C-alpha cells in the first residue's frame, strides 16, 4: 500500500466495485466473498424431499430403491419424493430519479442497487435457481423473466448495466407484476429507496407474502439522507418532483426526526407482514450488506 494513501478500502467497497465495468466479475467476487463460510445456502435450491414409499414397479429408477428396507422386509419399495421445486427469484429494482443521488465521494443509490442486484442474481443462478428482473420508476421500464443458467445471468447483468435513473417512483405496478410472474413459490426482492409511501406498495408486498412468496426489501439510502449533515443555507431541489425548498441549519434536527420516523414506519410495516427488511447505505461494503441479510435469513430471524 502506498504511503499516505489512507486506510485500505475493503475489498467489496462499493466505490471500487462500481469502478469495475465487468458486472459479472463484480457479482462473482461479491458473492464469493459474502457466502464463503456459510454452511448452508440460505437459498433453498434443489430440494428432494422424501414423500412416501410405494411398491416397486418395473421401470422405476433403481437409485430410488430403499435397499435397507429390502434387507429388512425382503420387499422392494421405491422412495417417492415431493416434486423438486427450484427457487425463482424476481428482483424489482427502483430506477426512479431519487435513486440517482449519491453522497460526495461515494456511489449513487442506483449504482449500489445495481451491484446488489447483480450479486443476488449471480448467487441465485449460481446455485441452479432462476432469477428475473423488473426495472421500474413511474412505470415498468424493463422486464426480464425469471430463468436459470449462465446465459440468462449475463442477460440480467447486461440489463443491470444499462440502468439509468429517471422519473418518479411508483412501485406497486412493478411489484404486482413481479408477484404474478412468480408462478410458484418464489423470492421477491425489492431494491428501492422506498420513497413511494402510498399504501399500495405495502399492499402489494403483503399480497406477495399471502401468496406464499418470500419477500425481502433492501432499503437503499445514502448517509446524507439519514443524517442530513448540512449546516448551511441551502436551496434543496427535489430530484423527482423538482420542488425547491429553502433550508437552513435549524431544519436539520426536524429532518432527522421525520426521516427516522420514515425508516421506522417501513421497518414496522415489513415486520408486521413478515417481510425481510434490510437497510443498507451506499457507504457499506457490499459483503457487509449481503452477509448480514444472508446470515439472518439462514437463521430465520430477519422477520
Amino acid at each position, binding site marked *: 500500500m502506498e504511503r499516505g494513501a489512507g486506510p485500505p478500502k475493503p475489498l467489496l467497497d462499493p466505490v471500487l466495485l462500481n469502478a469495475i465495468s465487468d458486472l459479472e466479475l463484480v457479482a462473482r467476487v461479491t458473492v464469493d466473498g459474502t457466502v464463503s463460510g456459510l454452511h448452508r445456502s440460505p437459498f433453498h435450491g434443489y430440494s428432494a424431499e422424501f414423500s412416501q414409499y410405494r411398491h416397486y414397479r418395473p421401470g422405476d429408477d433403481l437409485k430410488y430403491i430403499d435397499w435397507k428396507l429390502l434387507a429388512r422386509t425382503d420387499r422392494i419399495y421405491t422412495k417417492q419424493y415431493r416434486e423438486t421445486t427450484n427457487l425463482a427469484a424476481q428482483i424489482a429494482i427502483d430506477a426512479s*430519479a*431519487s*435513486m*440517482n*443521488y449519491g453522497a460526495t465521494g461515494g456511489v449513487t*443509490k442506483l449504482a449500489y442497487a445495481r451491484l446488489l442486484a447483480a450479486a443476488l442474481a449471480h448467487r441465485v443462478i449460481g446455485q441452479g435457481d432462476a432469477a428475473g428482473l423488473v426495472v421500474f420508476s413511474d412505470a415498468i421500464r424493463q422486464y426480464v423473466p425469471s430463468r436459470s443458467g449462465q446465459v440468462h445471468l449475463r442477460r440480467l447483468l447486461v440489463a443491470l448495466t444499462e440502468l439509468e435513473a429517471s422519473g418518479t417512483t411508483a412501485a406497486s405496478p412493478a411489484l404486482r407484476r413481479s408477484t404474478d410472474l412468480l408462478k410458484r413459490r418464489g423470492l421477491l426482492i425489492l431494491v428501492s*429507496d422506498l*420513497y413511494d409511501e402510498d399504501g399500495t406498495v405495502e399492499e402489494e408486498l403483503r399480497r406477495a407474502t399471502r401468496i406464499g412468496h418470500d419477500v425481502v426489501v433492501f432499503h437503499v439510502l445514502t448517509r*446524507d*439522507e439519514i443524517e442530513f449533515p*448540512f*449546516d*448551511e*443555507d*441551502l*436551496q*434543496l*431541489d*427535489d*430530484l*423527482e*418532483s423538482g*420542488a*425547491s*425548498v*429553502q*433550508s*437552513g*441549519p*435549524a*431544519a*436539520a*434536527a*426536524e*429532518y432527522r426526526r*421525520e*426521516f427516522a420516523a*420514515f425508516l421506522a414506519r417501513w421497518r414496522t410495516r415489513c415486520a408486521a407482514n413478515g417481510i425481510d427488511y434490510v437497510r443498507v447505505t451506499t457507504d457499506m461494503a457490499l459483503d457487509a450488506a449481503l452477509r448480514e441479510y444472508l446470515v439472518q435469513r439462514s437463521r430465520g430471524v430477519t422477520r
Partner: protein
Amino acid sequence: MVWLQPTSLWLAVLVAVPIAIHLLRTRRARRLAFPSVRFVRPSQTASVRLHAPSDLLLLALRVAIVLLAALACAQPLWITPAREASWNARTARAIVVDTSESMRDPSALEPVQRIVARESEAFVTRTFEVATLGSGIERAVAWLQQAPPARREIVVVSDFQLGSMSDAIAGMIPSSVGLRFERVARSNALVVPPVRRLTTADAAAEAYAIGLTDRGTTIEVQRRQSVESPGFRLLGNAGDENMAAAVRRALVAAGTAAPDPSRRIAVRTGTAISDGEVSAVAGRWMIEIIGGLSRDAELDRLARSITEAVPRAEPWTIVVRGQSNQPVVRAAASDAELVLDCATPLESYFTAAVARAALRVAPWSRPVTESDPSTIPDSTLDTLRREPGPADTTSWQTVEHSDGRWFWAALLLLLAVEAWLRNRTAEIKEVHRAAA
C-alpha cells in the same frame, strides 16, 4: 464644507459594491439536488437569517466605510470662524529685492540681507531678486495667489531709483494684498559729483550739481576755487618747485585724470627721495599701476629714445626700459605712496608722460561710472503703501492640509467595529449550528 479634490467624490458610487455583495449573498444559497426534500420543512428562519439585523448592520457599516473613504479622498475642509481667524493671524509675504546696477554696491549688501532676514519671519515667505521691480512684483502676485490662505503682503527692498516704482506697477497688485517699501541706503539730497580731473590750487574749477526732486530737475553750476588734487606729487631736486608746478599745470591743461586720494602717487626725478626711505611695492593698486605703465604703448615708444638710466637698486622695481634696455623708470613704495623714479629731468616730456600714464591707469576705489542719485521720495512711496487685507477665504484651494484625517480616523474606527461585529456574528451562527 468645501472639497479640495471634488472629483474624488465619484468614489462614492463604490457603495454599490457592498450592497451588491449583500444582495447576491442572500440569493446565492447553495443549491443541492436532494431526494428526500419532502422531509425538509421550509426554513423560514433561513431566509430571515440572511437578512438578520446583524447582517443589515454590517451592510450599513460597510456602506459607511466606503462613503467615508470617498469623502476622505475628496479632502474636505471646514471653513469655520476659528479657521478664518487663524488665517488672518498669519501673513504670506513676498519679498522683492532690487538687484539693479545701483543696488550692486557692496555697501548695500549687508542692509539688504538684514531686511530680508527680518521680513522672512512670517507664516510663509518667498524672496524674488529682480533687476526690475515690475517683473518682481508680477511674480510675487502670482506666487501669493498660490500661497495658503493668509493675509498677503509684498515688501519691496530697493533704493527706489526714479522710475523703478510707479502707480502702474502698484496697480498690478490686488487691493487685498498689502504693499510696503524698505529703502536701502541713498537719500535724495543734492549730490555734487566728485572731481575727476587733476586740479591745481591756482586754477578755478566748475562743478555741476544736479538735483532731481518731485518738483523737477535742478542743475546748479558751482564755480569755486580749485583745490589741488590730493594724492599726486611731482618731486624734483631742490629748486625745481616752479618747474614742478609748471609741469602740473601742463598736466591739468591736458585733462589728466585726478588720482584717488587714498592711492597716492609721486613722480620724482633726481634725488628727492633716498633709497632708505622706500620699500618694495605692495598693494594691488601699486602693482596694477606698474603693470599699466609697463604695457603703456606710448610710454614704451617714448622710452626707446631715452638714453638716461636710473640706478638698479633694491627695493626698486624696474618699470620701463630705455633705448639700450636700461631702466628709465623704477618704482617703490614710501609711506603707502607709490614713488615713480624717472631717469629724465622734471621738465622732460617723458617725465610728464610717465605722470600722466600713471594717473590714467590708477584704479579708483569707487566705480568711475557714477550711479544715478535720483530716487523716489518717501512721500511718493507713502501714497502707494497699504496694509494687507483679510485672508481670502475663497482661496481655500491652496490650503496645505485638509480635514480628511478626521474622516480617515472615523473610517478606521468603523473598520474595527465591522471586524468585531463580523466575528461576533460568526460566533453566534456557529453556536446555532452546534445547537441544531
